């Protein structure tokens, strides 16, 4: 089995993680009498995971460079408040309510301020040499306090209508047809990438994987995309909502056309986009290469002419930008911005990243691992909630799982120290 996986050049850690996720899902499904693996629950799971998943992508790069960011939850909180005020209090003075530009301007303001907050923390870590743990621990307090100051504690609601689509919800999906289009594009991209990569290696006469492995790999990836879209399309809008939509389009409701699919929720689309972009950044750009080089040996990176300080600022700034995206997703999902939004998210994000196989010692980690890690965390939480487990017991279980995950990773890592051999 292991030799088979090696031939296919898949990350053994990834397979282990996928198996764990599957066990959790099947376990909860059995325990809940078939209420866990349903289109509806999977849809909700994807929406609930989105905010943490987006931040986890950035946290991978932070931890790979041997840093940590404890302030992401607090940054999310302050950015959600700022974006709430921008869209609900400031912009309505200039634009009419629910103006199509409102959400765009709001998001841009959030992204810029997020990047600025991240840069400030990055400067303190990179140039002043204060350990990231301390800078961001301070940041946690500062930004959480700042979140309160934005409105003196008042919760901002209602939010802009278009902005709220970023949070999923009934209208925050792209529907069945567009979901199929996205699936088709994704599958075409997967096949194209596989062919292009193989051709390139062959043109240099490098060893390539056996062709059957290539087919299997590609088929598995494409299959996962298909299953995901089929599942999300199988979750239909509640009848009343469907009626309203038909009404607004001026179509009479009949038995068949009342069945309207949710399709891919917008937050999931955002996660996919962020993850793809950051994976390309990590694997295919100088920036990403330097992030890993710094994590592997900061001295060597410096000697190779890499500006480690500037890279540190950039990585933290990126984290801040991603916090803004997460802030938009979570406030849009809750349809309001409260100053305690994102509380304890730093721990969820770090746990997701670590469960996803990123080494706290730096130099090692993947974006897709972090995504699965985030999904594992959220599945545990949602599953236990579904079974009516106390919240206090939920935290105990999740805490233990985190420790166990890192332990087992260390254990297996020691046994198979070269993940690609």
């Amino acid at each position, binding site marked *: 089995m292991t030799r088979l996986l090696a031939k296919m050049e898949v990350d053994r850690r990834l397979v282990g993680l996928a198996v764990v996720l599957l066990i959790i899902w099947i376990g909860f499904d059995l325990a809940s009498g078939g209420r866990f693996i349903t289109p509806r629950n999977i849809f909700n799971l994807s929406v609930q995971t989105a905010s943490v998943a987006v931040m986890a992508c950035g946290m991978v790069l932070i931890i790979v460079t041997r840093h940590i960011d404890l302030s992401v939850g607090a940054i999310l909180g302050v950015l959600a408040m700022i974006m709430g005020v921008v869209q609900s209090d400031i912009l309505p003075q200039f634009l009419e309510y629910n103006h199509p530009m409102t959400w765009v301007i709001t998001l841009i303001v959030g992204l810029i301020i997020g990047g600025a907050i991240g840069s400030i923390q990055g400067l303190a870590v990179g140039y002043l040499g204060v350990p990231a743990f301390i800078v961001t621990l301070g940041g946690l307090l500062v930004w959480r306090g700042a979140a309160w100051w934005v409105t003196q504690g008042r919760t901002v609601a209602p939010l802009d209508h278009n902005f709220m689509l970023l949070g999923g919800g009934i209208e925050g999906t792209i529907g069945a047809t567009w979901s199929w289009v996205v699936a088709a594009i994704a599958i075409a991209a997967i096949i194209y990438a596989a062919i292009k990569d193989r051709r*390139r*290696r062959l*043109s*240099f006469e*490098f060893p390539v994987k056996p062709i059957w492995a290539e087919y299997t790999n590609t088929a598995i990836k494409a299959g996962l995309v298909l299953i995901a879209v089929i599942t999300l399309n199988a979750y239909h809008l509640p009848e009343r909502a469907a009626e309203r939509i038909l009404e607004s389009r001026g179509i009479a409701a009949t038995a068949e056309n009342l069945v309207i699919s949710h399709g891919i929720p917008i937050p999931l689309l955002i996660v996919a986009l962020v993850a793809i972009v950051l994976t*390309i950044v990590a*694997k*295919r*750009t*100088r920036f990403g*290469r330097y992030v*890993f*080089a710094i*994590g*592997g*040996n900061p*001295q*060597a*990176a*410096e*000697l*190779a*002419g*890499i500006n480690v300080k500037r890279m540190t600022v950039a990585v933290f700034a990126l984290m801040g930008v991603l916090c803004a995206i997460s802030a938009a997703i979570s406030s849009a999902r809750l349809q309001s911005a409260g100053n305690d939004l994102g509380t304890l998210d730093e721990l969820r994000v770090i746990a997701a990243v670590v469960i996803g196989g990123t080494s706290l010692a730096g*130099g*090692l980690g993947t974006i897709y691992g972090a995504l699965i890690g985030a999904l594992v965390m959220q599945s545990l939480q949602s599953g236990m909630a579904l079974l009516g487990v106390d919240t206090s017991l939920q935290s105990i279980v999740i805490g233990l799982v985190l420790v166990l995950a890192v332990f087992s990773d260390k254990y297996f890592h020691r046994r198979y*120290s*070269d993940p*690609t*051999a």
Partner: protein
Amino acid sequence: MPETNNSNTDKNPLVEMRDIHISFGGVKAVDGVSIDLYPGEVVGVLGHNGAGKSTLIKVLSGAYQADSGQIIVDGREAKIENARDARDNNIETIYQNLALADNLDAAQNLFLGREFTDKFGFLDDAAMEHKAREVLHRLNPNFKKFTSPVSALSGGQRQSVAIARALLFEARVLIMDEPCAALGVHETRMVGELIDQLKRDGLGILLISHDLHDVFDLSDRLHVMKNGKLVGTVPTKDVTHDDVLGMIILGKMPEHLMHLAGPGATNAPNKEALQ
């Protein structure tokens, strides 16, 4: 710098370091040292632990900046403030602690800081791996592990990667700090052959080593340091192991080469050493 009677005096030196001073807190790690290096020449830098060898060459490779002193490359004064400046002057360094990123593979390490990119600015890993295979094959035909992280390589294989890294970028001056420290007998011999080959190609090599045998076999001249000062510079063929040990331990030039003594040396044996 006194005249040295080596065969290269007709050429201009590739690099000269003049009167370099650098201290850390109160420690004068390098104290008024001048050395030079000619094309096609291997020069050994010898001295006890803490003599200042690594510090001296780090000034040349841009890792440290001298408190005072000059660096002259090809007859012109060069400002070397960081690793990139050194590289712009075709000075490459292979560090004592093997400056490789353990988590990256051979090709990624070879090209670190100077990656190939395609027309969109994305990394061209296949092209880099191709070039890496070519260079590494020339150095070490047995090298096979191109896609494993270098942490999975043996000491000799890692050294091959480090040396290949320097070669890849057409170094004219190669600085090697303990290149054989982590290596077995066979691998040490391999590095030795490599140094000979590079020397024939006209590179100037500064070789730091604690192994007198290696240094005697490989180098044309020896700079000996003690307590941050240059004891003297001697042609390898004119001295014996004992002469050199005397220089290292006592900081004393051999009698018959007294006329070559460096500015840091005294006629009498070093006072501290006698205590």
